[in-house]
């Protein structure tokens, strides 16, 4: 599994997001173990302190927890928690950008709504 780090945000945040994505995609089901700090560090060639910092964000949010002497596990209820968190961020991450770009290109609100509908139709056809 590859992570393409960008320069815009700190690496530890990108690590945390990558684990979140993997949990949402079902790659790390609840109550299963996630890779160790060393595995993250060696695989992605990042300093272990960076990997630890990323994972600690998820520990603080109750998404993963530590089993002493064994490793890090995905918490029960993590998927639900993550979906709620991502929903809260949906406006900032997607809607605002969409509206900004639409304004820049002078696409009207009605046109944007039409495009959204087209997007949904397209998805259903597949």
């Amino acid at each position: 599994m590859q992570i393409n780090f960008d320069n815009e945000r700190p690496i530890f945040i990108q690590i945390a997001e990558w684990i979140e994505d993997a949990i949402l995609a079902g790659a790390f089901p609840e109550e299963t173990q996630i890779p160790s700090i060393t595995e993250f560090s060696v695989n992605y060639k990042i300093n272990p302190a960076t990997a630890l910092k990323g994972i600690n964000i998820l520990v603080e949010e109750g998404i993963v927890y530590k089993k002493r002497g064994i490793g890090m596990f995905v918490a029960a209820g993590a998927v639900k928690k993550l979906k709620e968190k991502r929903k809260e961020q949906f406006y900032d991450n997607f809607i605002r950008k969409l509206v900004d770009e639409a304004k820049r290109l002078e696409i009207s609100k009605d046109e944007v709504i039409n495009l959204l509908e087209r997007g949904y139709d397209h998805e259903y056809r597949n």
Partner: protein
Amino acid sequence: MSIEIRKISKSYGNIFALDQVSFTFEEDKIYGLLGRNGAGKTTLLNIITNRIFPDTGEVLIDGIPVKENDDALKKVYMMSENNFYPAGMKIKEIYRWTKEFYPDFDTEYANKLADMFELSLNKTVKSLSTGYNSIFKIIIALSVNTPYVFLDEPVLGLDANHRDMFYRLLLEKYSESPSTYVLSTHLIEEVSNVIEHIIILKKGKIIKDESREDLMSYGYAVSGKASLVDEFIIDKNVIGIDSIGGLKSAYIMGQVPKGNLPEGLEISKMDLQKLFIKLTDN
């Protein structure tokens, strides 16, 4: 436990190679020691390992001055670009001699690494290509088990696969038994995510000594129409400017301003390499 560099100065003729350099390498961290050619990196490393002497100042390893002190020097291994090994010596003999001076040298691990890199232990130093010259020294650095390991241009001549292997092995080794590693290199992009703390030397002086994350968090670029950029940067700490046509990018040290930007301006982060270039230009 640390290596303390105290007010080191060194000049060659009337040129200051190092000018009142003071900082500390802390225990169990991976450092990047960065600087352009001639910035004083190698001089500094040679002083730390007692290969040359400073004009003034001193280096303390775990509180003990390194000057003429074998006990302090046994805590440090330095892999350098220059070869101090007899050209006709076989690699396996070098490994044996290394173990004489550094009793914690793990011969078994070194042999395993030699196998992974496909380095023949029966070869002599002089018969090695540039890449394998780096490899046999990388292997010592990873097997030597000293509290402080300095690597001066460790990946010189290595192909992409071997470079990748080296960084992974370094991180694996560091995760399992941490030491202080100092990577001195001009391949900044490659080590950017590996290092935790950055020291930048410019013309013999330390211009940055801080965590990678802090350094990266307050370098940014603002781009847009030249007139807008000029207005935006009036009260900012500008470290460089690029212009193309009527567009301009200014590189700024400082916190990214909160709140709305003037219409038509765009802010992006700088990667470490860009930041380094702008900080050490001219």
